[in-house]
């Protein structure tokens, strides 16, 4: 039978934090009322009560790990002996890592570009058609699904059976119906990366679509009307009014998807586990965390690589976000 005891822990876990905030504040309120006056000393105590749990979590789960990862990148696989830049030298020479970097780069070029492009096109189409809302819902739906779930969905599409057998994978069924040989798609080096990227595009297009369609509503109606009166074709309106107007939005979407792609892990793990030359940085890192008992030095270098990739894009993203807040 199913064991539901995990759900009991859930209540305890949540209750713990609620009790902490309630009782600590409750008693502080009591003390304050007795003294009749809120003292600045108590205000600091109050702030401490409010901040402490988050601060502790922040220090343990973010600050310490960042420093520690940085330190470990200069140490051997057990984190004991200082090895200088050896792990970095290894990183620049390792062919596997080089391929991982190249693959990541491929993902970075293809996925954000195509997702953004599809999102923009679909947002434009959907805005003018009465069943556009339903269409948007359908295209957005993959955003709700886990990467592993999406992996299963697409692995089923790419499924391969020998040439004589009936194909149950849709892609091979189509290929065979046109008279070609069926292929084991995800095992063909280099091209298989594209088949994995297709999954990500399928997921992320929905996000681009939703943001674009909100932004499209911001384009002044008069501008579009004026273009129409001047006799601009729909294509012309799209390229010379809509796209320039959406410039900042395009940038935002591009950065969001880029960050997701930089950390891509689940899809590759579920589909190929990095075989057939599909490895990416995050997968290599996961590998090195456990390979041969784990190598914390090399793993840390890989984590740092990912962070170095994320920093500029995330910084741009936060900067944009703050600017929008100001307006």
């Amino acid at each position, binding site marked *: 039978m199913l064991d539901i005891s*995990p759900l009991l822990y859930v209540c305890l*876990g949540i209750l713990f934090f*609620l009790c902490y905030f309630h009782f600590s504040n409750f008693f502080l309120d009591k003390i304050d009322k007795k003294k009749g006056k809120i003292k600045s000393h108590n205000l600091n105590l109050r702030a401490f*009560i409010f901040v402490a749990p*988050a*601060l502790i*979590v922040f220090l343990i*789960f973010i600050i310490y790990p960042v420093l520690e990862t940085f330190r470990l990148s200069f140490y051997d696989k057990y984190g004991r002996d200082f090895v200088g830049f050896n792990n970095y030298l290894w990183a620049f020479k390792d062919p596997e890592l080089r391929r991982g970097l190249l693959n990541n780069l491929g993902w970075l070029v293809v996925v954000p570009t195509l997702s953004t492009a599809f999102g923009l096109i679909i947002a434009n189409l959907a805005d003018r058609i009465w069943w556009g809302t339903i269409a948007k819902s359908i295209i957005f739906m993959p955003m709700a699904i886990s990467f592993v779930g999406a992996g299963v969905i697409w692995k089923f599409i790419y499924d391969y059976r020998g040439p004589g057998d009936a194909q149950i994978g849709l892609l091979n069924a189509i290929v065979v119906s046109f008279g070609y040989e069926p292929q084991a798609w995800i095992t063909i080096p280099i091209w298989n990366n594209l088949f994995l990227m297709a999954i990500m595009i399928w997921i992320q297009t929905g996000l681009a679509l939703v943001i674009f369609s909100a932004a499209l509503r911001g384009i002044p109606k008069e501008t579009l009307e004026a273009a129409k009166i001047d006799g601009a074709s729909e294509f012309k309106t799209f390229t010379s009014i809509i796209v320039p107007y959406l410039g900042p939005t395009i940038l935002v979407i591009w950065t969001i998807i880029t960050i997701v792609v930089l950390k891509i892990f689940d899809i590759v793990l*579920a589909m190929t586990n990095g075989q057939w030359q599909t490895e990416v940085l995050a997968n290599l890192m996961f590998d090195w*965390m456990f390979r041969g008992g784990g190598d914390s030095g090399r793993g840390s270098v890989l984590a740092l690589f990912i962070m170095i990739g994320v920093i500029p894009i995330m910084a741009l993203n936060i900067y944009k976000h703050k600017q929008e807040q100001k307006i």
Partner: protein
Amino acid sequence: MKKFTLSSLLSQLLLLFFVVIWIIPTFGLFISSLRDKDLLAISGWWTSLKTTQINEIFRSEGNKEQFQENDLFLIKGNIFEDDSNKKIISYGVTSKNINEFDIEQVGVFKDGTKIQLFENGNYILTSSKEFKKKGKRIFVTSLSPPKFTLDNYREVLFNEGLGQAFINTLAVAIPSAIIPLVICSFFAYALTWMNFFGRDTLLALVIASLVVPLQMSLIPLLSIYNDIGSIMGVGAKSYPGVWMAHTGFGLASTTFLLRNFLKSLPKEMIEAAKVDGASHYDTFLRIILPLSIPAFASIFILQFLWVWNDLLVGLVFLDQVPSEIILSAKLRELLGSRGENWEILTTGAFISMTIPLLIFFSLQKYFIRGLVAGSVKG
């Protein structure tokens, strides 16, 4: 109403094209999860409404079932185990010629045994000698009508451990979404409305930490967990451990979003409450909390789905045993071990999608708001 033009027709067709491409993968998965597993293994889901031709090998009963009539030994039986809707069209007695005989036509085995097979699977074996212990092999070609069933769901939920994994995932995701919301709402409140030493530095640090990908934390945290585990003499991986890990990874973005929201509330309201003698805790409970419900809902949904769909954290901070494994990890395990059993994979994937799809269709507004805001999640 707009007038009907060529370009609007083209737009409609183009959009339809996109919609079809986007829905087909999920649709195919759903249909497949409902199909009979034998049919699923040999025919594409797009043929699921058609009758499928199946070639199978069966073995007749052995000499246990034999009985004597006059000088002949007979075995009567049915090759199908349960009542199936299959209709046999032809059969054979050797692998070289599996369509040798039509139904009801008498076939002859190498050793002289005669067989008569009927459309519904009934057969009669006749021989002048006693039968051997082992039954005879019969090669059967039959037509199977479309067959849909919930058997796959029963199998996957209760025999493959997906049901337990579903509960485990809930046990991971609910606290991992609520705990950060609770502690970050107080945190964000303090960062917005309280004056304390080092506030601005702390705020800047939290925002800066948005750039830290969670991969940075994995190795050091895992070693902390291992140390704690060995000191306390318990397993290093546990539910509270994974809750706190998710809380840590969601902390910066949740605080950032909540602070942006709190900052947009009118300052006068907080001031007024202060003048009335309300403590910060009163203010938080009576004024901020009721106003924040929609923002909380969006952030909760964002974090809940993020955790529900996560694989990496679940792999690193939980043991891959039945009592702890989460859905996405279980699914990934099945992809390796049951890679050819599509009835299990499709059904499992669909089960893992139920909660996200439910949230998606019922709370679309919050869902979209949450996901769009979630662009800052590390």
